[in-house]
């Protein structure tokens, strides 16, 4: 089934350096939650198309921690953080650090809300250290741009028919 879901919405708050992402999925919260907490599933969708994602460790429970790597040839980008609060099928609160900027840390909250007909609304709120840092994060999208996104999307849509 190739039902078109609601497209991702991004909000950048005026008062605090927050990025909010909202997206709806044609699957119940338990399934969407599992795709976030099972590292084998997470690795299949989280990483950018041209990077290979490998999990170093991933212990998704309150008090747990994670680390994963994105690799492109010789280049390696590490990310790590702690799971502050994990409530099955409801919420994941975690920290997030890109190891290239080790002092930078975002506080992220992913909330899984059940909608009618077994669908889910995912709301991810990311609080970063400063407005400048947020501008840099938003601008980081410029480097990769549209190119890779649509290639991967085309492939995906072809395999879905």
């Amino acid at each position, binding site marked *: 089934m190739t039902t078109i879901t609601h497209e991702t919405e991004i909000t950048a708050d005026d008062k605090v350096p927050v990025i909010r992402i909202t*997206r709806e999925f044609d699957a119940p919260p338990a*399934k969407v939650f*599992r*795709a976030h907490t099972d590292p084998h599933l997470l690795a299949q969708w989280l990483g950018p198309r041209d990077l290979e994602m490998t999990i170093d460790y991933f212990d998704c429970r309150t008090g747990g921690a994670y680390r994963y790597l994105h690799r492109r040839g010789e280049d390696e980008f590490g990310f790590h953080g702690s799971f502050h609060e994990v409530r099955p099928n409801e919420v994941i609160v975690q920290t997030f650090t890109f190891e290239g900027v080790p002092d930078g840390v975002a506080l992220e909250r992913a909330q899984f809300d059940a909608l009618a007909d077994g669908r889910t609304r995912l709301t991810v709120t990311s609080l970063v250290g400063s407005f400048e840092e947020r501008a840099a994060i938003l601008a980081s*999208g410029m480097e*990769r741009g549209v190119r890779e996104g649509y290639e991967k999307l085309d492939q995906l849509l072809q395999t879905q028919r």
Partner: protein
Amino acid sequence: MPADALSRVFAALSDPIRLDMVARLADGDATVKELAEPYDVTVQAVSKHLRVLEGAGVVSRSRDAQRRPAHLEAQVFDVMTGWIERYRRQAEDRYRRLDSLLRSMPDDEEQAVAAPAADRPRKEETP
């Protein structure tokens, strides 16, 4: 837009008051006095913020008119909107991969996930 110009824009927008001023200028031109009204700071302080925004090319001010209203440079505003749109597309791309994965996940596994985590065997230990 070259990198040093971009970093000036980042620095200019790193202050909550300046960011708020930019948001208000998106609705239309305004004088220093008008911009200062909602804040608990002096007109001089707002004037200083405005000079930072001017220096980064985010706003311009009319030379001729007596009131010298500040004007948001549409080009800079477009660049910012562009960042957010690209970031949004990346998130959308990621979530379409998740859509595809969710479709491939069997429904009966949802029952196992719905059970408390403690009752569920860890993946590595599952025979």
